[in-house]
């Protein structure tokens, strides 16, 4: 008998975006409230995992044609380069810069280079999580 996943798949299409947006919110909120790159990355992986459960490995790979190992490497590279940037100005490694900026559309926002480091963490977590799931779940 052929099973029919129509309810699961339709719900997933809606819920996926809610989880994904929540993970982005958690990621950006990390400096002032609980959250940050690690939890944000895990939540994104969770959203992708839901896609994998509702559809199959091939479909998701087609929808997101990334090599997640490269995502890990990119994340590491971003984290290393943001930390190493101050070394050019003879400041200790990992020194961060921050300030308040008046951005168009967004208004006054306080920006901090630690966010870029967090972006690296986020990418590493998503990449590592997805690589693990795809390797264990797939044939290759």
């Amino acid at each position: 008998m052929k099973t029919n996943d129509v309810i699961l798949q339709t719900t997933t299409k809606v819920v996926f975006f809610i989880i994904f947006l929540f993970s982005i919110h958690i990621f950006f909120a990390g400096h002032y409230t609980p959250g940050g790159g690690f939890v944000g990355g895990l939540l994104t992986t969770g959203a992708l995992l839901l896609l994998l459960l509702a559809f199959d490995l091939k479909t998701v790979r087609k929808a997101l044609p990334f090599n997640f190992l490269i995502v890990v490497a990119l994340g590491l590279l971003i984290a290393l380069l943001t930390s190493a940037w101050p070394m050019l100005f003879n400041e200790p490694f990992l020194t961060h810069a921050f300030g308040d900026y008046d951005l168009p559309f967004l208004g006054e926002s306080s920006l901090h280079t630690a966010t870029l480091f967090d972006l690296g963490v986020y990418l590493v977590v998503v990449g590592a999580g997805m690589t693990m799931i795809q390797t264990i779940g797939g044939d290759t």
Partner: protein
Amino acid sequence: MTNLLLFPILIPFLFAILLLFFKESVLMQRILVMTGLFFSTVSALYLVFVVKEDGIQTVTLGSWPAPFGITMVSDMLSALLVTTTLIITFFVVLYSFYAIDEGREKNFYYPAILFMITGINGAFTTGDIFNMFVFFEVFLMASYVLSVLGGEKKQLRESIKYMLVNVVSSAVFVITVAYLYSIVGTLNMADISVRIQEVNQPGIISVIAILFLIVFGIKGAIFPLYFWLPSSYAAPPIPVLTLFGALLTKVGVYAITRTYTLFFLQDISFTHMWLMGLSLLTVVVGIIGALAYFDVKQIIIYNIIIAVGVILFGVSLMDGTAMEGSIYYLIHDMLIKAALFLLIGILIYVTGTSNLREMGGLMKQYPALGWTYLIAAFGLAGIPPLSGFIGKFLIVKGAFQAGHWIGAIAILLSSLAVLLSVIRIFIYAFWGEPKPTPERSKTRYNRMMIPAVLLVTLTVLYGVGTEALVPYMSDAADVLLDPSAYVNAVLKE
């Protein structure tokens, strides 16, 4: 150049990341790994020079003041160890080009090595006890990859053991750091050193000292915590075994040396007596193992355990001469073990077996291998002009000065046993009746010989040029014996 001491850590890390992008291209992997190791070795050599000129180098990450941020500290000991690590890795990678199959090379063999070097150099350089834990995990994770990579049955079995033991010891490490933190309330090693003298809690501090001895003793394979080492080191291929044997246990030895000279000085008669007793027993079990086996890998692996015992015995004496001897011996041992493992690898390659009883009469066919091996073996045992002599001589001298006759005599006798164990390989494999050997490519043999011969040459130079190294070694020993120099360099008050 405030960040100079970070370069030996960051350059391997950067190149490890870059290597992840070129999974399929073996040529690109080889070029990048060699460039990375070349640049980091140069920066490490320059670091030794700077530490010699300007004293201890420190940088607190993120521009935070000293006890609050993570401080990285490069004194002479850590600078020398970092340099030795990078030089050894350079030669081992060169050797890997001919000794590792393409399947492994395409599946993150070189990135794993570079990540391991990042962790090892970080553990040698850090000035923060929890950061040291993190760097331990970095190199352990990479070493798990290296030990299982290839997926042979034996490797799978042994890597499970290896991981289990190390997961347990890492958990104990965290618990010990938690105890220490609850007593002194700081993680910065210089700050811990100051506070331990102030809190005046000798009982609990001694407990923590013994817990650290257990943690680092598992990593560094001291008696009775060495049980995992012989079988799990024998499983992976020779270049990996070389890196493990030359570098990994030495990080444990370094960590014991650092904590026992910087932190635990309030009850030396208790803590350092344990260290001394256990290190002598380590020498004894190492000797028993080295003489018991007819397997060339096992013989050299048990020699690692002997060396760990000898070095820690020198440290436990807390005496200027013996400490200097320990540092000489530590560096010598890293170099000579790497050289010996590489030579053993060639021996196994040309004979197709690691069983001594199945070898014989190789001297006619492979004279260069025979003589290089003989020099390395004499160097290991400590025959005077070669590299093993001065370290052991100073350790024994220090032991006699301190009145530890039994220890001194045990160390001297251990040299005899070491010599016997390695000369047995020479006699069985190179003398006697030639046994049939499989056909092997001569060029591959020659290319594998290059890094091995260069490393042996380096150890000979280390032995002959001892005089030139004296100022470096005494600088390293001075910081260990006088923790206030370390503390002042970090806290700058």
